[in-house]
């Protein structure tokens, strides 16, 4: 990326919205499209077999990367939102009953709230927000109290997109499991920053997006334990996921095919696997250090400015996100001025309106960092904030 904006080199600090893709990912997709493009699964010819092999190899790459037991536990979707919708509609509709409870943290993204509201309305289940502390960390002891025989599922972001909070997923899963509840983790923001091992975390569902971890848009996936997938009814239906169809009756294929009707985004899946491989090929410790350094620098440079307040927990409990507000200046105006300075951040509610309400703000300005960001870019952000004050006051 060497894009220039408003005549300046661009400091892209909106990586929680979407990351840029390294050449390896673009090339993997391109290579597939140019040389082995074919539909998967149903072809008897060579090219289709090549495509199918590449597609299933990508599933295996994802499996290895997240520590699932078998490739069949990885269902490809178009993104994290669809993965959560799949769980809510398929697992939720089949398992939730009148009076059952779904506990969702107050910092969830709308993608992990609204699908549950829809299924709660249809089934009579109840959604209860798990409170958070003022510093934007989960109130674990409140969760402990809320868990009970009615709890069917706990939904929690691994990393908050608004604040960067890293949630204690392992602990949440342990508590939920001992209450007999399932755990769904929204991993959209985690995979770019943390190594993830779904079995070590002990979760039942883990939802993912390709484009937030250096992969392409239009692809993502759901990890679900096989025994859950086996019992779940199909979500979408169509070709490629059936065993037999007559106008009277249809029988479905096994997992994961049952959850992947239609032509999958083969190039996207291959690109996503390439992103996992890109990350695996890096020294993850070094990457994490780099991001931690940037985060500490950004938190310091931003938080020390007059009238600026950084939200969320201390940097060591946070992935590389700095969410802040400025006295008397609306986040939108911050965003516009910074944009003119060549610094791209996000301003608004970040699809987390309940969290904003809890924090008593209408929105925040959010800088979110990726492994390719630099200290210079963070300095540009800090300098930009001085310009914000100059313009706006």
């Amino acid at each position, binding site marked *: 990326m060497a894009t220039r904006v408003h005549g300046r080199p661009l400091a892209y600090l909106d990586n929680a919205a979407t990351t840029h893709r390294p050449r390896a990912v673009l090339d993997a997709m391109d290579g597939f499209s140019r040389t082995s493009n074919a539909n998967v699964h149903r072809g008897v010819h060579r090219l289709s077999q090549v495509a199918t092999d590449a597609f299933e190899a990508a599933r295996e790459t994802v499996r290895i990367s997240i520590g699932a037991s078998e490739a069949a536990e990885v269902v490809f979707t178009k993104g994290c939102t669809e993965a959560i919708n799949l769980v809510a509609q398929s697992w939720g509709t089949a398992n939730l009953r009148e009076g059952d409870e779904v506990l969702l943290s107050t910092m969830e993204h709308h993608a992990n709230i609204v699908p549950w509201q829809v299924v709660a309305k249809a089934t009579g289940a109840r959604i209860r927000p798990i409170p958070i502390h003022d510093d934007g960390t989960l109130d674990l002891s409140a969760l402990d109290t809320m868990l009970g025989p009615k709890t069917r599922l706990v939904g929690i972001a691994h990393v908050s997109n608004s604040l960067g909070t890293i949630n204690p997923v392992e602990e949440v899963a342990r508590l939920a499991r001992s209450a007999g509840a399932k755990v769904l983790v929204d991993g959209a923001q985690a995979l770019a920053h943390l190594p993830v091992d779904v079995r070590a975390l002990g979760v039942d569902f883990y939802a993912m997006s390709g484009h937030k971890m250096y992969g392409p848009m239009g692809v993502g996936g759901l990890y679900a334990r096989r025994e859950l997938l086996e019992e779940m009814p199909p979500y979408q239906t169509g070709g490629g996921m059936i065993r037999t169809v007559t106008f009277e009756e249809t029988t479905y294929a096994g997992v994961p095919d049952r959850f992947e009707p239609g032509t999958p985004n083969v190039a996207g899946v291959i690109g996503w696997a390439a992103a996992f491989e890109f990350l695996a090929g890096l020294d993850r410790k070094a990457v994490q250090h780099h991001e931690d350094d940037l985060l500490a620098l950004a938190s310091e440079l931003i938080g020390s400015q007059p009238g600026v307040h950084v939200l969320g927990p201390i940097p060591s409990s946070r992935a590389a996100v700095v969410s802040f507000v400025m006295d008397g*200046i609306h986040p939108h*105006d911050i965003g516009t001025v910074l944009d003119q300075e060549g610094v791209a951040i996000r301003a608004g509610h970040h699809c987390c*309106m309940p969290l904003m309400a809890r924090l008593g703000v209408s929105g925040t300005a959010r800088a979110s960092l990726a492994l390719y960001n630099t200290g210079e870019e963070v300095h540009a952000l800090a300098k930009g904030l001085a310009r914000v004050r100059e*313009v*706006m006051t």
Partner: protein
Amino acid sequence: MNDPLRDLYQEVILDHNRRPRNRREMPEATHSASGDNPLCGDCVTVYLLVENGKIVDASFVGLGCAISTASASILTEAVRGMTPAEAKAHFDRFHRGVMGREEDPRLGEAIALLGVREFPMRVKCATLAWHALEAALADSQKEKS
């Protein structure tokens, strides 16, 4: 130096943002309507008190950025004293100004808002309150004759 930010955040806008005029609820309003910008979550409600065919009072409440706050503030000052039909014409004038190149001098202070034309992402901020005004004018049920 040509500074697009100074064109957007003109002094008149910053002033209205710092000290918004007529920011209060109006329980006795004859007309009111709300608008929101789902992209940023900002929202505004515009209240009008129409008596004997004239807007005798106008106010707003809402949370928003400098542009949307200033826009609402300027608007409430402008429409006071107008007939509803004049206010509608004023809305049309503003709308034409934002969408096109036109800068009708009758827009008064609202001309300062037209700087958003260079900032397509901010056009909705400037028009939010005006669309609420238009909706309020259409909300004629409670009008006192």
